[in-house]
């Protein structure tokens, strides 16, 4: 009798951190403290003052600015980080290690921003608001990936799905209105999802190649149609955009209100989908069946679950979510279609999915992180930070590789993803 756990690459150990990892983490914590002290504190003179604006531009909810002396705050951050690092080396935080790592990453970010804005003011609220906006396509891409991969189908084609959906939403919305355009985008995403499912399930094509085919096809078709028609008939490329909706009560919360609750429908959809997917995947029977199709299809089959049909459905659903993400590019952001406008966001969404350990909440966290890096890159020139913006743009990718290398603990993909299921 074959043992099933050998199919997994690593087993998830609950709460156990190996001594080696404990030491590595401790050194990383100390390194963070060192960076804060060496690069930030040492180059700050004691009379510098940092101002964080706490309300985004154009908002009518005014929160007073946060003003503080830079050097003491930086020193405090470095000190706390060093203390936590020492504790980690000596006793170790065990299960809470990742949480502490997240906190320290936050410290590093805070220190970085405080240092960069010394003697100037930085609109922190604006930065965070833009981060939320930029994270939408990434998170939606990651959610789409989660739906597909949790049932066992690797979806590399998110980029192509988004691009195709963006195109159809442009044309349809130009001919009617944004709502119909959004529906068209969802249907396009579903169609691509169906295509991926047919290739991967019926013809058992290697799923990376199926995804690649979809990417090449979508890029080629949309660029072709765009060059042929959209450039000639400008009225086909004027779809309009969704307006921003302010949620009445919630958007008045100081600081967080304008950042989270004054956006267009795509941001709210992202939040709603996050909650819906978390509940559906982890608290319903439907979700359990879906996940079992991805973890151990044979067992699922024995229990009467139609594995391939489950995979078809989840891939089509995943395509729909990718379709919403694609519509965002046009109807929620730029307001027109440009060739290859997704610019790799679909792949970053995949990275966000892995970073988030195939959980919707993780996907949102990773998406926000990448969105923050994106929005930060724009501000760097305003502040006196001498890092070239291009290097900051590289940061999300490098961070993903670091995460994948297992620094933040092992990621746990669905065990049977990528392998077509055969009923024997």
């Amino acid at each position, binding site marked *: 009798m*074959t*043992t099933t756990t*050998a*199919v997994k*690459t*690593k087993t998830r150990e609950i709460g156990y951190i190996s001594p080696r990892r404990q030491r590595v983490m401790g050194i990383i914590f100390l390194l963070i403290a060192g960076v804060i002290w060496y690069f930030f504190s040492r180059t700050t003179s004691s009379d510098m003052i940092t101002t964080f604006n706490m309300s985004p531009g154009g908002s009518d909810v005014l929160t007073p600015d946060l003003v503080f002396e830079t050097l003491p705050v930086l020193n405090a951050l470095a000190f706390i980080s060093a203390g936590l690092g020492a504790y980690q080396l000596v006793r170790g935080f065990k299960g809470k290690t990742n949480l502490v790592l997240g906190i320290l990453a936050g410290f590093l970010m805070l220190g970085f921003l405080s240092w960069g804005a010394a003697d100037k003011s930085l609109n922190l609220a604006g930065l965070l608001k833009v981060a939320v906006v930029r994270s939408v396509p990434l998170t939606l891409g990651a959610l789409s990936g989660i739906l597909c991969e949790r049932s066992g189908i690797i979806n*590399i084609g998110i980029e192509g799905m988004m691009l195709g959906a963006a195109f159809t939403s442009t044309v349809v919305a130009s001919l009617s209105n944004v709502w119909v355009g959004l529906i068209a985008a969802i249907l396009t995403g579903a169609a691509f999802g169906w295509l991926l499912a047919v*290739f991967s399930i*019926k*013809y*058992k*094509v*290697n*799923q*990376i*190649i*199926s995804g*690649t*085919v*979809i*990417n*090449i*096809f979508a*890029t*080629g*078709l949309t*660029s*072709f*149609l765009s*060059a*042929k*028609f959209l450039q000639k008939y400008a009225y086909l490329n004027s779809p309009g955009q969704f307006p921003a909706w302010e949620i009445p009560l919630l958007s008045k919360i100081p600081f967080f209100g304008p950042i989270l609750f004054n956006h267009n429908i795509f941001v709210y959809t992202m939040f709603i989908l996050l909650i819906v997917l978390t509940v559906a995947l982890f608290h319903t029977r439907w979700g359990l069946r879906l996940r079992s199709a991805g973890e151990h299809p044979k067992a699922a089959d024995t229990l009467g679950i139609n594995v391939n049909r489950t995979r078809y459905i989840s891939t089509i659903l995943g395509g729909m979510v990718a379709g919403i993400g694609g519509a965002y590019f046009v109807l929620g952001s730029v307001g027109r279609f440009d060739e290859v406008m997704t610019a*790799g966001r679909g*792949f*970053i969404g*995949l*990275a966000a999915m*892995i970073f988030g350990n195939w959980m919707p909440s993780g996907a949102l966290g990773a998406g926000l992180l990448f969105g923050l890096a994106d929005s930060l890159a724009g501000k760097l020139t305003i502040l006196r930070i001498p890092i*070239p913006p*291009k*290097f900051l*743009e*590289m940061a999300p*990718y*490098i961070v*993903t*590789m670091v995460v*994948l*290398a*297992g620094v933040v603990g092992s990621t746990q*993909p669905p065990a049977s993803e*990528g*392998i*077509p299921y*055969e009923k*024997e």
Partner: protein
Amino acid sequence: MTDNQEKPTQAEAVPAKPNAIAIFFEELRQNSLTVTILAIVTGLLLGGVVAVLTTESVYAAFGTSFGAGWREVFRIFGLTYSALFTGAFGQPDKIQAAIASGDWGQINTAFSPFFESLVQSTPYILAGLAVALGFRVGLFNIGAEGQIFVGALAAVWAGTHITGLPAWIHAPLALFIGGLGGALWGFIPGLLKAKTGANEVINTIMMNYIAFRLSEYLLTGYLKDPTKSHPISATVEVTAWLPRLFPNPNRFHVGFFIALAMAALVYILLFKTTWGFQLRTVGLNPNAARYSGMSIVKSTVIAMSLSGALAGLAGAVEVLGVNRNLGVAFSSGYGFDSIALALLGNNHPVGVVLSSLLFGFLRNGALRMQLSAGIPIDIISIMQAAILAFIAAPGIIRTIYRLKEPKEEIGSSILTASRKEKPL
């Protein structure tokens, strides 16, 4: 018996789950030549269909009469393929006239489309070899695009910042440095995969984006030509140029022969050396490889580095042979196309060369077709995606053309392979 010191943790890092790539390619090798040729032909025909469907004069003609409509359909069909053909091979009447006149300049010009197709094929050959080598070891190298960039950057650096060398040293040195750059770009994801088990698909995609940002950074800064206003490098020293064989407008350069030489080298490496045998075994059956003492870690790292080196060489050859400088929008989709190439060529150097020639001729033909028939070049992406789809899912071709299923051999179809690959 074994000459490597593999600790259990290292062996764990490369997962023991069934190698989806090996399974997939075993299935593909059953493809008869018929299916391959039909796949290519059908894919090319699909391009014509798309062209017809998107030409307005066709619909106008159908408006007048049924016959006129179909005449227009055939006209567009013919126009598309004749433009493609003359773009790729040269115009027959011009060639005839040139040969009749006996003037070398005229002959040169008449044949230059054909040679330009060979020029376009050159990077495809090298990038296709890179991806095919990766596949042979069971690795997905989607990072070809980034490796091409880094190779090009390194070669440009060597060509502009190293001076005073004679041509017979400078050019090979620049090529070597380009290959080294690409090797580095393949080494990093290879090492991560070998040591930590991190998925090389995502890592190579991340390296692509890091390469893009890096090239943007360098081409607007350190490598930028001070006399030009847009991000482009200085022109490479004449001593580093890859010589062209014919005068203008014929751009055929020795890089083509370098690419062929590389194909021969890869063939010898893979099929005529022990080491190549090891690499192939690691790809086909990692368990057997490990059992017989081959180091999976070493094989993975070396294969990815070599793969990256080949792709880097592609970038270097393009820079030193064709443009002699480097602009930001330099490579366009070579990375994904080379996956299609490797697949089409069945991961064999000869197959890769043949498919690269096909793609190169298609690409050159489409470039000129865009000018002469007004059909956007993206149509070849559609054709390539279709060809790739038909090759990867031969069932579609068999269904369309009512071909018989191939005889199933024991242990070489995905059904039996997946059964055999149950974990030990």
